[in-house]
């Protein structure tokens, strides 16, 4: 993506299509009055659409991290603006309120009548994304947010161009039409948008433009060629780590591996003498080396002898999980499902499950490039939250936010890791000590893996009862460190103990009708940093909840897929259809030959229903191979089928990788895994063949970046049970079964 600096400054009358967006979005006050950040750019018809002699530019409110957003957003604009998709250039927008993410706070439960958190904590939790996540790329929200706002932006721009043409020609609007980037006059004269843009930019943007009906769509619903494919196939796509500036130096850091602990002392004498080392910086809680190349910076920073203080959490893994389990003895933080009479309901079956901490392990290690010049900060940071980057880095540099320029290059993977901004902050702290010199601060892979905001370790205690082939009682308790509590403390400084739905999402919100049904989440205050890992709480809770439903099916001696359907059909028909679809696609019979196992799992997350069937095969040596995976998903509305398929299968690979290999453990207060040899993922040969079917029965549009992940682990664990009779209640599975690698 390019830079906004290509626009020159020019006075421009602003109202904004975002006002229309605000009306369309009803309650989201944040949408009502954002200033147009492009107000002084020529040809800016609204905060998203710029038409000038350079062509048509979409100023994208979301960042490209592999989810294809620059193409999907451009297609929505092209659809309503009536231009060819190829004609739309895309650049990433600056940090600005106009680019807030309305879908980050949108309701996406399968049912309208779900339980809601209550009380002060809940209010804070609801307000939180509005306050800090305005411009967040995450939560599988980009397409949902864009579906309304990008179409409106395109339609408003088109209507305004038509008005400019009507004024110029002295005709009514009713005799004008548009075609492929032109306004067509009654006599057939074609006027290029570019020739109308300057006049149009001086008009009040159209406030209530007509949107095309689905029958008129030429891009929406059809697979489009992704705009980032050729750059990514030629090594010319600019990732954060690829930023190169005149006079730039290269840095690497070592921050305390006992996360949140102190640095007591360091001896850099070995590093100081290394040829090419330019500066050693004391960051207080770590050290940085500035050098002539990244490799040398990493070598030198690793040569520094550092004494670290204690971590603010138990140093050994067993003690960490002991502390998490102690949360079961505390009052629940959330009880988001409570149906029936649990006090008197019979229970006959119990199981305890456990999952480890997980790293994101994006292929591109954390990095940012920053330069401080004359009281300004310019930073290139591959990030999912540019407003947070701007404001927090401004504070560290001791300047106002309006003195910060944030560039958001391509991200080499995000998966939620880059919703945090620590890598931008550290780069800023390095730059503060190197005034006037651009410095790229790159973390080694080891530093990256040992300084994550991990998916929390979690424990679930499940109780249930079946009668006449159905579940009569399901009572689940999940204990984990609270992501919301930690994140709110990090970004507000307050210890608010908010109600945290992520403790039980993926369990409390599943479309099963069960008469006695309760799900409680217990918050543990283990201080290991935790964050948003692709699908967040669903990633562990789908494993807990769906595995237990599978166990209950076997208790009831009912086929596991039919068993799920029995509880789902009356509760949520689209979800049941998804399960039936995966049954039919996979030719599910409930029976598998010796040496073959099949498992099914379901999770409703981010507004999308996903069912997955995994088939495993065991060879004569006992080695287990994932042969096939069938995925059925209902997203309500599919904008780009090929891209949706990529997100679902990619999400499933992410989930399977973690299920088999993923585990961050702690010893002496430090993460024990530090690179891919001890934190591996699926490879070409270990990835199953995929079969995907997409449905559009649901009324609301669902997300797609994350929902493929949650069912993957339970589907595989259920398949392993079918294959071996051994029930896996802990992840990773690779420590219990022998997989092809």
């Amino acid at each position, binding site marked *: 993506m390019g830079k906004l600096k290509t626009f020159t400054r020019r006075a421009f009358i602003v109202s904004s299509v975002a006002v229309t967006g605000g009306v369309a979005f009803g309650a989201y006050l944040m949408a009502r009055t954002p200033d147009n950040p492009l107000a002084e750019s020529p040809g800016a018809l609204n905060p998203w659409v710029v038409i000038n002699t350079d062509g048509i530019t979409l100023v994208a409110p979301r960042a490209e*991290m*592999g*989810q*294809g957003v620059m193409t999907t957003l451009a297609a929505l604009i092209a659809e309503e603006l009536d231009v060819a998709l190829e004609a739309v250039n895309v650049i990433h927008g600056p940090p600005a309120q106009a680019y807030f993410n309305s879908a980050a706070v949108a309701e996406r439960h399968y049912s309208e009548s779900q339980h809601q958190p209550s009380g002060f904590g809940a209010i804070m939790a609801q307000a939180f994304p509005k306050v800090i996540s305005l411009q967040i790329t995450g939560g599988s929200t980009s397409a949902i947010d864009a579906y309304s706002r990008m179409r409106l932006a395109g339609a408003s721009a088109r209507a305004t161009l038509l008005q400019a043409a009507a004024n110029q020609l002295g005709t009514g609007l009713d005799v004008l039409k548009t075609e492929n980037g032109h306004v067509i006059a009654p006599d057939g004269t074609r006027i290029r948008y570019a020739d109308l843009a300057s006049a149009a930019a001086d008009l009040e943007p159209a406030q209530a433009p007509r949107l095309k009906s689905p029958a008129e769509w030429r891009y929406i619903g059809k697979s489009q*060629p*992704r705009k980032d*494919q*050729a*750059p*990514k*196939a*030629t*090594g*010319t796509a*600019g*990732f954060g*780590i*690829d930023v*190169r500036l005149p006079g730039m130096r*290269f840095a690497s850091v070592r921050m305390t591996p006992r996360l949140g602990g102190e640095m007591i002392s360091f001896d850099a004498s070995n590093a100081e003498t290394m*040829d*090419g080392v330019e500066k050693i910086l004391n960051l207080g809680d770590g050290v940085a080396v500035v050098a002539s*190349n*990244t*490799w*040398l910076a990493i070598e030198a920073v690793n040569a520094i002898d550092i004494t670290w203080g204690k971590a603010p959490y138990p140093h050994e893994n067993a003690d960490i999980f002991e502390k998490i389990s102690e949360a079961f003895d505390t009052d629940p933080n959330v009880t988001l499902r409570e149906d029936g009479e649990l006090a008197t309901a019979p229970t006959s079956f119990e199981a305890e499950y456990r999952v480890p901490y997980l790293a994101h*392990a*994006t*292929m*591109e*290690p954390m990095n940012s490039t920053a330069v401080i010049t004359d009281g300004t900060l310019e930073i290139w940071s591959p990030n999912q939250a540019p407003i947070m980057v701007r404001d927090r880095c401004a504070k560290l540099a001791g300047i106002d936010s309006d003195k910060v320029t944030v560039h958001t290059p*391509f*991200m*080499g*993977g995000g*998966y939620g890791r880059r919703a945090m901004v620590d890598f931008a902050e550290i780069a800023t702290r390095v730059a503060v000590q190197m005034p006037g010199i651009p410095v790229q601060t*790159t973390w*080694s*892979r080891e530093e990256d893996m040992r300084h994550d905001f991990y998916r929390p370790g979690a424990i679930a205690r499940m109780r249930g009862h079946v009668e006449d082939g159905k579940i009569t009682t399901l009572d689940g308790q999940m204990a984990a460190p609270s992501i919301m509590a930690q994140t709110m403390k990090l970004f507000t400084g307050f210890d608010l103990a908010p109600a945290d739905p992520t403790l039980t999402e993926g369990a409390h919100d599943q479309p099963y009708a069960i008469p006695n049904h309760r799900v409680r989440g217990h918050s543990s205050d283990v201080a290991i940093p935790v964050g948003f890992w692709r699908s967040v709480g669903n990633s562990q809770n789908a494993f807990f909840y769906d595995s237990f439903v599978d166990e209950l099916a076997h208790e009831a001696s009912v086929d596991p897929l039919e068993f799920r359907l029995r509880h789902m059909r009356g509760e949520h028909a689209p979800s049941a259809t998804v399960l039936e679809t995966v049954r039919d696609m996979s030719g599910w019979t409930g029976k598998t030959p010796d040496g073959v196992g099949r498992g099914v799992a379901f999770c409703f997350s981010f507004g999308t229903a996903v069912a997955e069937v995994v088939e495993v095969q065991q060879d004569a040596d006992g080695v287990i191979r994932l042969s096939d995976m069938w995925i059925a998903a209902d997203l309500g509305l599919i904008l780009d089928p*090929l891209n949706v398929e*990529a*997100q679902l*299968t*990619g*999400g*499933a*690979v*992410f989930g399977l*990788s973690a299920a088999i290999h993923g585990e961050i453990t702690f010893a002496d207060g430090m993460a024990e895994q530090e*690179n*891919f*040899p001890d934190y591996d*993922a*699926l*490879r*070409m*040969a270990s*990835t199953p*063949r*995929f079969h995907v079917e997409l449905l559009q029965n649901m009324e609301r549009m669902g997300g797609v970046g994350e929902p493929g992940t949650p069912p993957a682990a339970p589907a595989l664990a259920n398949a392993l049970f079918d294959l071996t009779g051994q029930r896996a209640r802990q992840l990773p599975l690779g420590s219990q079964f022998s997989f092809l690698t």
Partner: protein
Amino acid sequence: MPTTLTINGTSHQVDLPGNVPLLWVLRDALGLTGTKYGCGVAACGACTVQINGEATRSCQVLLEDVDGPVTTIEGLGTPDNLAAIQKAWVANQVAQCGYCQSGQIMQAASLLAEIPDPSDEEIDEAMAGNLCRCGTYPRIRAAIHDAANMIKTGA
């Protein structure tokens, strides 16, 4: 004393110590940033280049040990003039985040040079060292088959 390297057919003088890995020579000294850093221990394949036509992890080859012409992703083709394998990558919409794809393509190009029409098993084996956290493997496999056909038919 500067080291002379031939990269993508062009001769470069590099004034760096001989123990600097080729990856960082390419990225930080020569500005050829298409080759990526992923792990530094030859476990992910993101840094794959060809030396004498053979796919090699550039994070493990020291500058002083480079013993032949180097081809990087920039040497295969450009957005306006794609090599056949890159056309296949684009046509199959392989990339998601795209960070690993330079290495995937360089590895696949070596495979196709050695085995013009590889089987799935041969692809699995050749590509085993190349990690993709986005999970694009099915499309990588499809693109390799397509590239094999394109090269065979001269398309």
